[in-house]
């Protein structure tokens, strides 16, 4: 489908040879009567409309309207567009501007629907022209510039030149003459190489008008004549009436009234011939003016009447009403478009909302799934935790069993030591009891013999031996008890204990115990308790045993030293102190005895190691103490010593 503007240009060529084409037109008319209501009929109708484009705008309009109607029924969009464009131009030529605008806006909508850029630009251009005819210059220029933008991008020189000229015309009407002249010259330069008479007529005429407005009438007349020449070349019947009008005006301006009158009359006649109401109106007004100068009342009245009738028909209240209605419908259309856009926006928004909702739902489902998985994981973790706890308690019991069996193993390794410790007292028990048996026999013999003194002596021996038996029996008992203590699994519970009170109690127990056994024993003791310690969590009987052991050792050490020195040379002293240091509690037992020789330092915590004479110590005290402090309470047992000056045993316990 060819765009309308090309048809429009070709039509002008056809007009020049009206007679030659009359036969063809008749044929078309005949064909039309017989043709069915299809796209071919639309094309034939359009052909006819184009034939009458300039010569008979009303006929053109009739055919175009029918073509538009039929196209709409057939949904033949491109046909409808061409028909509407043609009808719009026909309305414009007839001065029916509201209808013209109506047609062109419909055509514009169709071209946009089709995505036809050339068509869109043409429609915009025609709309611009109609607004210019209505003296709405700004609106007109707006549409023309829109059209120009599209034409330039399409590199369509013909329509580009035409449109540039229209823009120049708009500026001319706005009295911006320099701009007008610029755009017309620009248009003329574009049209120079083209072979389009009608385009040239238009541009030349407008150049003339612009120059005339600038007062350059001689130059203007030159262009008008060029335009007329081009018009006669292509047989243009429409434009000459107007060109003659301009020529008349220029002649009037340079005071050649006769020439002016001549051209004004020509303009009027040619306008009537081509049914150009505007042209007739302009010619009439000019003639009224000219006849007034010649003082010819009849002619004045006649042309005034013609002018008034035309003005009423062209710009009458009816027209404005229609225009307003059209503008209203245009506004409504735009509103409808806006509404549609709004609806689209709303729809989009709704869709977006639905999408968002769906997304939230998805997230919620995912979160729910996550929560469930976490719950599952937690259940699994709990299960594993229980298993681990089970394993841990098994491990703990195994560990305590191991500690126990280690103790038993260490006892096994020390069988020889145990044998010595037990067998030494046993040696005495066995042998003294055997001796006593013999002595009892002897005693009986002496008694039978009546030797009382002998008998008493023997019975004294028996008593003495009995004491030995008792002593060594107890010694064996103590050894066995110590061993049992060593191998016993800790059964005492940890509880908060005032360590100061505990230490003090065992210090006194140890001192009085020693005093009871050995009347000659004497030593001074000092205490230095840190009252800020408070209670600490320990197994009291075990810690008590350790403190007792260390204090007894200390008293033993000072007593040993005292026994080897002369009176007043030495003052035996034992110091007991407690102190809180960095969350730990320190219990110090210091003596000023002989100290521990360096060579036995690494043996003092070994089981059964003792420096005491055989029978006085089991050798288990420090070994047990070490186990109680380190293994039982997670603390430390350290010793500092200097030979000849004394020893200090330090218990370090964690506060919590």
């Amino acid at each position, binding site marked *: 489908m060819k765009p309308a503007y090309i048809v429009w240009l070709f039509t002008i060529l056809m007009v020049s040879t009206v007679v030659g084409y009359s036969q063809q037109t008749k044929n078309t008319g005949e064909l039309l009567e017989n043709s069915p209501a299809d796209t071919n009929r639309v094309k034939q109708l359009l052909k006819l409309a184009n034939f009458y484009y300039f010569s008979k705008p009303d006929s053109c309009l009739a055919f175009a309207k029918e073509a538009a109607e039929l196209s709409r029924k057939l949904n033949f969009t491109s046909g409808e567009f061409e028909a509407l464009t043609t009808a719009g131009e026909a309305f414009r030529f007839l001065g029916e501007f509201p209808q013209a605008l109506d047609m062109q806006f419909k055509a514009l909508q169709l071209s946009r629907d089709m995505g036809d850029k050339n068509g869109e630009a043409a429609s915009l251009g025609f709309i611009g022209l109609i607004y210019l005819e209505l003296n709405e210059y700004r609106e007109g220029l707006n549409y023309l510039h829109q059209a120009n933008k599209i034409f330039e991008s399409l590199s369509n020189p013909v329509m580009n030149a035409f449109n540039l000229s229209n823009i120049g015309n708009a500026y001319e009407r706005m009295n911006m003459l320099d701009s007008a002249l610029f755009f017309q010259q620009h248009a003329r330069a574009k049209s120079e190489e083209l072979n389009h008479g009608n385009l040239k007529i238009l541009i030349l005429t407008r150049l003339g008008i612009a120059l005339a407005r600038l007062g350059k009438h001689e130059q203007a007349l030159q262009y008008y004549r060029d335009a007329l020449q081009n018009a006669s070349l292509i047989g243009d019947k429409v434009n000459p009436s107007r060109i003659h009008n301009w020529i008349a005006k220029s002649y009037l301006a340079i005071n050649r009234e006769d020439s002016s009158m001549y051209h004004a009359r020509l303009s009027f006649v040619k306008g009537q011939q081509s049914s150009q109401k505007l042209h007739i109106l302009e010619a009439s007004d000019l003639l009224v003016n000219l006849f007034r100068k010649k003082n010819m009342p009849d002619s004045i009245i006649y042309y005034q009447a013609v002018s008034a009738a035309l003005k009423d028909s062209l710009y009458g209240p009816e027209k404005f009403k229609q225009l307003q209605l059209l503008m209203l419908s245009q506004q409504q259309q735009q509103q409808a478009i806006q509404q549609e856009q709004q609806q689209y926006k709303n729809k989009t928004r709704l869709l977006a909302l639905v999408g968002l909702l769906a997304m939230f739902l998805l997230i919620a489902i995912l979160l729910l799934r996550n929560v469930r998985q976490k719950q599952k994981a937690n259940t699994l973790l709990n299960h594993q935790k229980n298993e681990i706890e089970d394993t841990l308690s098994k491990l703990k019991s195994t560990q305590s069993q191991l500690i126990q069996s280690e103790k038993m193993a260490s006892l096994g390794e020390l069988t020889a030591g145990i044998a010595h410790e037990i067998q030494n007292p046993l040696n005495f028990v066995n042998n003294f009891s055997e001796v006593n048996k013999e002595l009892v026999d002897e005693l009986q013999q002496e008694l039978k013999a009546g030797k009382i003194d002998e008998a008493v002596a023997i019975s004294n021996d028996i008593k003495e031996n009995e004491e*030995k038996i008792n002593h060594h029996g107890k010694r064996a008992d103590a050894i066995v008890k110590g061993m049992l203590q060593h191998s016993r699994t800790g059964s005492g519970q940890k509880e908060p204990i005032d360590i100061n009170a505990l230490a003090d109690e065992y210090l006194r127990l140890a001192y009085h115990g020693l005093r009871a056994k050995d009347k000659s024993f004497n030593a001074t003791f000092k205490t230095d308790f840190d009252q800020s310690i408070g209670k600490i969590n320990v197994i009291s009987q075990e810690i008590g045993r350790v403190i007792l052991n260390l204090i007894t050792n200390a008293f033993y050490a000072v007593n040993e030293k005292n026994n080897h020195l002369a009176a007043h040379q030495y003052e035996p002293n034992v110091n007991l102190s407690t102190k809180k240091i960095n969350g730990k509690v320190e219990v110090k037992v210091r003596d000023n005895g002989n100290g521990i020789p360096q060579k036995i330092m690494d043996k003092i915590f070994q089981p059964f190691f003792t420096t005491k004479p055989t029978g006085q110590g089991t050798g288990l005290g420090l070994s047990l103490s070490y186990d109680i402090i380190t293994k039982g309470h997670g603390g430390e047992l350290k010793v500092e010593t200097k030979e000849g000056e004394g020893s200090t045993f330090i218990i370090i316990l964690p506060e919590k």
Partner: protein
Amino acid sequence: MKILVVDDEKDVQFLFEQRFRKEIKNKEMEFVFAYSGEEAITYLNQHVHEAVLILSDINMPGMSGLDLLKHIKQKYSEPPPVVMMITAYGDAENYNTAMKLGADDFLTKPLEFSVLKEKLKAIY
């Protein structure tokens, strides 16, 4: 016959005096006691060749019975005194060491005095 008994347990003296009451009364045997290895050596130095028999414990503070045995067997070669070890440690290691060092006999605690008496009588 003079017998030197070396033991850190002081009750040993009392026990021997009770056990060999008759022999002591009949002057068949004479006992001297030392409570450590060092004491035994001091006695031996002061009373050369007096003691013909030495009965020694092994496990003693300071000089042990084995140290004493070694010392006696090295120093008093002519005539070497009879040294019998009496110990609660009846294990093979102690026994072998004692024998290697020249111990004449090895008895374990608790001591069977009847056995000891027989052994002593066998020597004389």
